[in-house]
């Protein structure tokens, strides 16, 4: 499961070679486009962009299925509420339930928007390792006057990478606890309250201990947030300039 979370697919494709900053900005721009998309033509365009990126980078389809799958229930509810509660030309009626054409349109566009948000984000995580993403974010945040508020972008990035580091640990911990309590006959359906306590108390307990250990380990190696360089050298290459050029052309068109 470890590897399935935030799964990075190693490779050397076009997107892999891009600077993380370029990809993050690209993700931000494409998110704006996705949220602005209001017709099927735009959705088709997005699909085209997405598919050409996936195919050109030879990414496994499974990765994207996995990124959308946990949210399917949410999407279903989103779609159904739009379908039921939008007024307009009725296309189908069953007793008091009436489905409108506008509802169908709106529902599918809104749902597709969310799906594309996830898919494009998955494109970033598939081609960029978590530590590169955080380094990229750190560098992007650097120009912001955060240090006048007492925050350094490095601290933010450190917090982010530590959180990412803890997610699979927490998951592993949870899984082994679940096995331990299941071995003692825990039945989540029968005694849900007991189940929550028997899992959450030791989970919180051991997580806090874990956090303390990590803090001590950092402390004992004299960690300081000042004057540190990153393991990843950020380099803006020709490819990145090309992408920025494309971004700006796109943006100009968008404004016009």
């Amino acid at each position, binding site marked *: 499961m470890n590897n399935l979370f935030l799964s990075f697919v190693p490779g050397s494709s076009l997107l892999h070679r891009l600077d993380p900053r370029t990809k993050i900005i690209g993700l931000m721009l494409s998110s704006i486009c996705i949220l602005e998309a209001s017709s099927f033509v735009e959705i088709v365009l997005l699909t085209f962009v997405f598919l050409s990126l996936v195919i050109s980078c030879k990414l496994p389809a499974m990765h994207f299925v996995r990124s959308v799958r946990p949210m399917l229930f949410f999407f279903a509810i989103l779609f159904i509420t739009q379908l039921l509660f939008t007024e307009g030309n009725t296309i189908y009626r069953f007793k008091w339930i009436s489905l409108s054409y506008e509802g169908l349109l709106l529902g599918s566009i809104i749902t597709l928007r969310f799906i594309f948000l996830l898919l494009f984000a998955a494109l970033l995580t598939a081609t960029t390792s978590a530590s590169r993403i955080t380094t990229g974010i750190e560098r992007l945040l650097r120009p912001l006057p955060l240090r006048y508020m007492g925050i350094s972008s490095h601290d933010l990035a450190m917090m982010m990478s530590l959180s990412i580091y803890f997610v699979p640990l927490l998951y592993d911990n949870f899984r082994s606890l679940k096995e331990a*309590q*299941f*071995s003692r*006959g825990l039945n989540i359906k029968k005694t849900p309250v007991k189940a929550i306590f028997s*899992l959450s108390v030791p989970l919180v*307990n051991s997580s806090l201990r874990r956090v303390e250990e990590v803090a001590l380990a950092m402390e004992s190696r004299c960690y300081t947030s000042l004057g540190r360089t990153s393991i990843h050298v950020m380099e803006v290459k020709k490819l990145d300039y090309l992408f920025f050029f494309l971004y700006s052309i796109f943006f100009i068109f968008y404004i016009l």
Partner: protein
Amino acid sequence: MSIDLRNVSFWYNRGTSLEKQALNNVNLSIEKAEFVLITGEVGSGKSTLIRHFNGLLSPQSGSVTVSGIGSTSKDLRLIAGLLMQYPQKQLFGRTVFEDVSFGPSNFGLKGEALDKRVSDALYLLGLDSDISGLSPFALSGGQMRLVVLAGVMAMKPEYLVLDEPTSGIDPQNRSSLLSTLKKLHRSGISIIVVSHQICELLPLAEKVILLKNGKVAFAGTPKEYLKSVSSPLPEITLLMKELNLAGFNVNEDIFSVDDAFREIRNELEEKGVNQDE
């Protein structure tokens, strides 16, 4: 009545690019009231194997039956009690009583019968009944381990399965844990221990199972193990082998310090060495 595994195979992440076979066509049977040591390298499938004994995992091919019950039944958890690695991590109760009673109460035990189960289990492990009102987090590490073990024993399992019970434990607590296991075994419970610290467990075991890459590489008595397996061996056995290489003539299939001491003394006497020197 026994634990029987027939052609059991198990894969993690089956059908994905991360597929990894943990068990490969495992056949074994563990009789009732046997003391079994399961050993093997890290990643050889030991932990995966024992999770089949109480139904946490079901085999993806082959079959597991424990005392005649198939691996999908929840009753397996009553028959085979599993003590996980670093068991003190699973404590959660406000009191020791709450924690020890967790298992039996999940199987519907209530009131006085439950009280009795808990106090019996604490007694069995040599814990003072006074501690049942304390918070488990106030206990020492060794006592925490015993409390969790009491929680497993309170379910009255026929088989007690322990995953690396002696890892991260000080020598004193280790020997008391081992003698507790011996005591439990004498009372008629099958003990199945997974460990790579074989020196301390070989003298207790009646049967040794060595796993290698998800396959059973050896199964037999400790004496046979020492004869037919080249590694891992207990240090004391290695010492005897070294002595033989150095020109002595001692018995090699020895795994306890006492036996080794006796053997070496006999050998020295035969050679006519004065032992006072």
